[in-house]
């Protein structure tokens, strides 16, 4: 049984925004979802997390099975054991997911107390351990979000997301707003966490190359549909859909590959 099986996902407003999306992710696996704004990649993630905006609904035919349990149709109480506890998520703009008036260590400790049932002291100690695990100095627990760089804020959110030891982490454009060297650090961290905890990872990005760093399987979305899927190596070396081909061609023309290849000739 796969960890995550999405079958025939559709999301509707007055018209379909996402149609016919199938995704499969094994326990401990990595899946990259590539697409530009409006491709439906974020709505797909939000469907899996059960956090679609209220005006949107998934289609009657949609099935989202997580560890064998059907998630569509769950009510708020039904979601509790899944969202955050077994399916964690981080998003593009870390600043807007942190309380600006609370020290970041307390924000993590609160999750551990409320969701994990830890006592005050145990939660504080565990928060320090988790901060160390995501590469933050222990003294960071006493800092406020505004004192941290974007990369550090994202590490705090990753610590919070993995604190409940989820089976699946969804990173939706989680490195997009970061400098490239910081992006590389955060991608390295996600790869480390995956190895250490057997975490399955869905990495969503507009950049095919970012996904290629971390993921074994890739789906490419456009206009609400999956237009290409395969292993990362297949999709990058022999892209079939014209859109995927244009993404690969753009890298070859303007990216660092351009210079590398020119030097080889």
């Amino acid at each position, binding site marked *: 049984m796969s960890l995550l099986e999405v079958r025939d996902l559709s999301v509707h407003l007055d018209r379909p925004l996402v149609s016919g999306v199938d995704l499969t992710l094994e326990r401990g696996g990595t899946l990259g979802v590539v697409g*530009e*704004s409006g491709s439906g990649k974020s709505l797909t993630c939000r469907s899996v997390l059960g956090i679609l905006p209220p005006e949107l609904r998934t289609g009657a035919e949609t099935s989202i099975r997580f560890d064998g349990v059907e998630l569509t149709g769950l009510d708020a109480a039904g979601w509790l054991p899944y969202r955050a506890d077994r399916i964690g998520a981080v998003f593009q703009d870390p600043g807007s997911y942190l309380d600006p008036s609370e020290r970041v260590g307390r924000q993590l400790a609160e999750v551990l107390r409320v969701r994990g049932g830890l006592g005050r002291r145990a939660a504080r100690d565990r928060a320090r351990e988790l901060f160390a695990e995501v590469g933050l100095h222990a003294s960071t627990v006493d800092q406020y979000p505004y004192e941290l*760089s*974007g990369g550090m804020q994202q590490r705090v959110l990753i610590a919070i997301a993995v604190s409940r030891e989820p089976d699946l982490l969804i990173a939706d454009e989680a490195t997009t707003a970061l*400098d*490239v*060297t*910081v*992006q*590389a*650090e955060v991608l*390295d961290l996600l*790869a*480390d966490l995956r190895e250490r905890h057997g975490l399955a990872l869905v990495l969503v990005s*507009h*950049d*095919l*190359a*970012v996904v*290629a*760093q971390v993921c074994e399987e890739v789906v490419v979305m456009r206009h609400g549909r999956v237009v290409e899927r395969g292993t*990362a190596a297949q999709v*990058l070396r022999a892209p079939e859909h014209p859109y995927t081909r*244009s*993404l*690969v061609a*753009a*890298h*070859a*023309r*303007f*990216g*660092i*590959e*351009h*210079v*590398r290849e*020119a*030097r080889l000739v």
Partner: protein
Amino acid sequence: MVSLGRREILHEVDLTVRPGEIVGLIGETGSGKTTLARSLLGLNRIERGSARVAGVDVAGLRGRALREFRRAGAVQYVFQDPLQSLDPDLPVGRSVGEAWEVRGAADVAGRVAEALVRVGLDPDLAARLPSEVSGGQRQRAAIARAMITSPRLLLCDEPVSALDASSRTAVLELLLDLRSSVGQLFISHDLGSVAGVTDRIAVLYQGRIVEEGPTAQVIGEPQHPYTHLLVGSAPTLGGESMSRHDRAALRAQL
């Protein structure tokens, strides 16, 4: 040297952009790249040194002379967000043609149409509001607005960072196409994304240029550890360009 308040932001920066050349200025958050670009427009005071643009030393300009220099449009700025230069309440054509309108030029509408065609846009776009056109079209309109004063230098500050893949390619092709008309300083945090458009690259780190040279040389044989880390951090389609271990070792050297 450029300082803001009492803190020195840029130190001993030497940089040349020749006509017909695109020079990449690569730096991350806080490196001073935007401060440098603003200094070339006289928006930040240059304390020491000179910045000559088309024969005029911007560092020596004050007050009215500086305003006149800016109004003449020898240096133009292309922002990451085109709405920094297009008025959201005005039709695109009005923003593009503003400099001509202000000077009372004849046949502004005709010239705007020409300017739009030059950047690959349908002249009918002139009548639409910025919110009614795509992000890529907005950025091209912003470039059209920058080009109407026949600038000698275009400061492109992360011009494609906010764009989708398809519009990104179109805007990069446009900048390459404009290269013969105007020298460009292409500012970005991502060395990988500008490799294919720049003739030379300068790497700015903590307010200093730590490396400068032809693009192929800087990427192929980076000398400074920071440049090496930038190259090793740039995502490529070939998968990891450098191992996690090697990146960590380079970070330790900085």
